[in-house]
């Protein structure tokens, strides 16, 4: 459903993505791995046209995304939950969750609160007064309420307490069972290989490894070699 073909993306004059190609199928969870600075975030930003690629082609359900502005891409069914998950600080949690909610979304506020019960008690609190874990739950919930068919998730478990990480992973497993397509940027090889159907590893703005998660689970060393130790 998402096709990224040979994109080159720059920040000013610095050439960051050198011809990335990848795809995400209907109902598929695809993980994007790579060292710090490999270009994972930039790939997601390129898809959303927050940093539009200078060349290459990105299409979603056959539609060329270079013709849409960022908000049009979002309305077209792609939700982006960035690694900087800061909420709108002066809006309440309820406002944060619902300000872009789509009435036809598959998941409603109740579903989000079922995954993240901690949010229920915070509905009238300002976004600026949340802890890191609460912010992440809010960011993911807000994305799902826009009614996406594809979710772009950038390091959802980074820097979070184990309880929150578990809640997020549980929700991701749920979403996968319900056939939501996900492009997941992950630091943890173990988590990525468990959740994903397929994996891409990036290094210096290039795809250096692509494969089925099932096969790579048998030989994770292959992945580790590209991602680095300790991951």
């Amino acid at each position, binding site marked *: 459903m998402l096709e990224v073909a040979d994109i080159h993306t720059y920040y000013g004059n610095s050439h960051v993505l050198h011809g990335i190609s990848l795809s995400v199928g209907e109902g598929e969870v695809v993980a994007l791995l790579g060292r710090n600075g490999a270009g994972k975030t930039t790939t997601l930003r390129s898809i*959303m046209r*927050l940093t539009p690629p200078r060349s290459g082609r990105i299409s979603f359900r056959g539609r060329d995304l270079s013709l849409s*502005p*960022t*908000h049009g891409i*979002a*309305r077209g069914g792609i*939700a*982006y939950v*960035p690694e900087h998950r*800061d909420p*709108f*600080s*002066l*809006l309440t949690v309820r*406002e944060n969750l*619902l*300000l*872009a909610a*789509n009435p036809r979304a598959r998941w409603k506020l109740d579903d989000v609160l079922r995954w993240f019960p901690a949010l229920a008690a915070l509905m009238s609190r300002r976004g600026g007064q949340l802890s890191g874990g609460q912010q992440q739950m809010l960011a993911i919930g*807000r*994305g799902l309420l*826009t009614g996406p068919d594809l979710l772009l998730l950038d390091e959802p478990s980074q820097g979070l307490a184990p309880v929150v990480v578990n809640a997020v992973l549980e929700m991701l497993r749920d979403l996968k069972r319900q056939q939501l397509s996900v492009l997941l940027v992950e630091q943890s090889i173990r988590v990525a290989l468990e959740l994903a159907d397929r994996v891409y590893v990036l290094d210096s703005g290039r795809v250096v490894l692509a494969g089925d998660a099932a096969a790579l689970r048998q030989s994770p060393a292959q992945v580790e070699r590209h991602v680095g130790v300790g991951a």
Partner: protein
Amino acid sequence: MITSALLGVQVANGLAVGALYALMAFGLSIIKGLLNVPNFAHGALFLVGAYVAWAVSGGSGSFWLGLLAAAAATALLGMAIERLLVRRLHRGAYLFQLLLLFGTALVMEQTVIAIWGGLGRSMSPPPWLTGAVDLGFSPFPRYLLFIVVAAAVVIAAVWALIERTWIGARIRAGIERPEMAQSLGIDVEALVTAAFALGAGLAGLAGALAAPLTGLSVTMGTDMLAIALVVVVLGGLGSIYGGVLAGLLVGVVQSLAALWVPQASTVVIYAAMILVLAVRPQGLLGER
């Protein structure tokens, strides 16, 4: 001899002028919030509002129609300025945006002169707004009271729009994190256009309300812009409501200063700005 009645009238005058400053500063803050640029054409929009109100109410005989036409015309002008001009410049091309807005202001001023001439004009309030209401300790001229009430109603309505509606929540979101708002499907560009139109309409309305109070002159916009910018800074750059409070304060201080040091009433404003900023660099309601 300064009597309580004279004091009362000066306070009334100060509140009315302050209400105009508040409208101006409010519009400037809304535009600055989304565009990140002080709208240097804001004074010219004030001027256009005054002349449109004068021409339309003179031509039609309806004071209300004059107000409405002024607000509508300037809102449309604001929309055009944003869509056709400001948008063409790259985001963050701060200096160029300022220059463009400044140039636009000059064009608007010269257009007013070309249409209506460079001479000052006067406009009287409608008959039902002449005279004064007696507040017991002092009379309050009716038209001044009207300005205060009209500004209060409009500011309250815009406040409710921004703070109590989903459109307002999206505007606040767009002001704080434009990229995130866009990623959620919010058309921030359209909000910027709407905010520019809204702010411009407030400036036009302020000009229309000012016309019967101060009369019309082709320099009224430039004078107003200078004070309105001071008011915005005083109110606090981070807050869109600080300017409302600061506007009223500046109006009253300026008006009272005119009793004792008539020649220096404008200097007093700048002195007050320096004083406030020395104590509170973030302005009255700004956060840092």
